[in-house]
């Protein structure tokens, strides 16, 4: 089973910074800074790994469309099994908060959704969602992809992951396309080229148009990503990476 796979890649204290651009009629506009950070979190009984992703628009966009998104997940440092997931988004004034508490024994997630009404008051929705054995949240899935044994996979292999998003489980397929050497801010890197698709969803468009490049070393750093959505396409480029394990 996948969820018990050992974590060999992700260490605490790692910080990756990306720049997200949106492609408008052939011209790339740098939109936002995306970071992926890991840190250690201690409770009285155990030590957990905190995976945090944030997105913040660059200052020139703030008066037009300000984004301050926070996605985080508290996982077991050994197996990357998620226990708690928070999503707090603010996208141009649209605010939403989601919290999942994973109970792996009963295979349920208690979710809490908090939204702001137009008049400024909050409303909450609590729900218990049944999940499968290997269902993860979005953040954990992103990190889990880096923990896969891609060096053992053959070109053309694919694997499915179940991701819980907005209280709905969706199946995400990752396909190993090829090895490619690309230029990045970290230098010229040999990378694994992966295609991502979401089954039964039309968020991501095109066939093999949503791509992810992970460095073909032990760190498997995501260095470049391309995505295609209904209103255009964009890309994510790495700017810096610190605190890597190897």
């Amino acid at each position, binding site marked *: 089973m996948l969820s018990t796979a050992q974590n060999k890649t992700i260490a605490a204290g790692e910080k990756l910074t990306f*720049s997200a651009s949106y492609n*408008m*009629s052939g*011209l*790339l*506009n*740098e939109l*936002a*800074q995306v970071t992926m950070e890991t840190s250690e*979190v*201690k*409770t*009285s*009984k*155990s030590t*957990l790994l*905190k995976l*945090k992703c*944030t997105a*913040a*628009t*660059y*200052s*020139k*966009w*703030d008066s*037009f469309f*300000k984004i*301050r998104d*926070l996605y*985080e997940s*508290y996982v*077991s440092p*050994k197996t990357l099994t998620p*226990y*708690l997931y*928070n999503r*707090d988004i603010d996208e141009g004034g649209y605010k939403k908060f989601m919290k999942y*508490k994973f*109970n792996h*024994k009963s295979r349920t997630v208690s979710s809490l959704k908090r939204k702001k009404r137009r008049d400024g008051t909050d409303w909450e929705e609590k729900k218990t969602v049944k999940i499968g054995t290997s269902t993860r949240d979005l953040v954990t899935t992103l990190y889990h992809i880096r923990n896969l044994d891609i060096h053992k996979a053959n070109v053309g292999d694919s694997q499915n992951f179940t991701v819980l998003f907005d209280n709905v489980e969706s199946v995400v397929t990752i396909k190993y396309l090829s090895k490619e050497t690309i230029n990045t801010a970290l230098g010229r890197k040999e990378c694994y080229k992966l295609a991502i698709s979401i089954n039964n969803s039309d968020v991501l468009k095109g066939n093999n148009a949503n791509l992810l490049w992970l460095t073909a070393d032990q760190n498997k750093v995501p260095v470049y990503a391309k995505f295609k959505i209904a209103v255009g396409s964009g890309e994510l480029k790495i700017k810096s990476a610190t605190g890597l394990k190897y």
Partner: protein
Amino acid sequence: MKKLFIVLGFITAILALILAVTPLSKIAYIPSIAALIFGVLALVTSKDKHSGKKSIQLIFLMTIIALILTTYKAIFNTVEVGNTEQLEQKEEQLEQESIDELEGLEIDE
């Protein structure tokens, strides 16, 4: 014919100017180039007549301002993240909340 080019030139030049002042300034290159082409076409079609060069000059003027502004922005504006204080506060608060929450959860390592 000349009138059509002048009208099109005006529309694209104004569009270029508007885009140039927004954060989307890079896109202003497209209407700028269109405005220049329409301006030149208007000049060519009005060669023999002596009337109304002013509006064509205005098109060129606006386009050049738009181009200068866009180029200036592209060269000198560095991309940086704005104020993230609120986000950082939220992060801290959430971490505190989450630790409390995690204390109550059963975690088997």
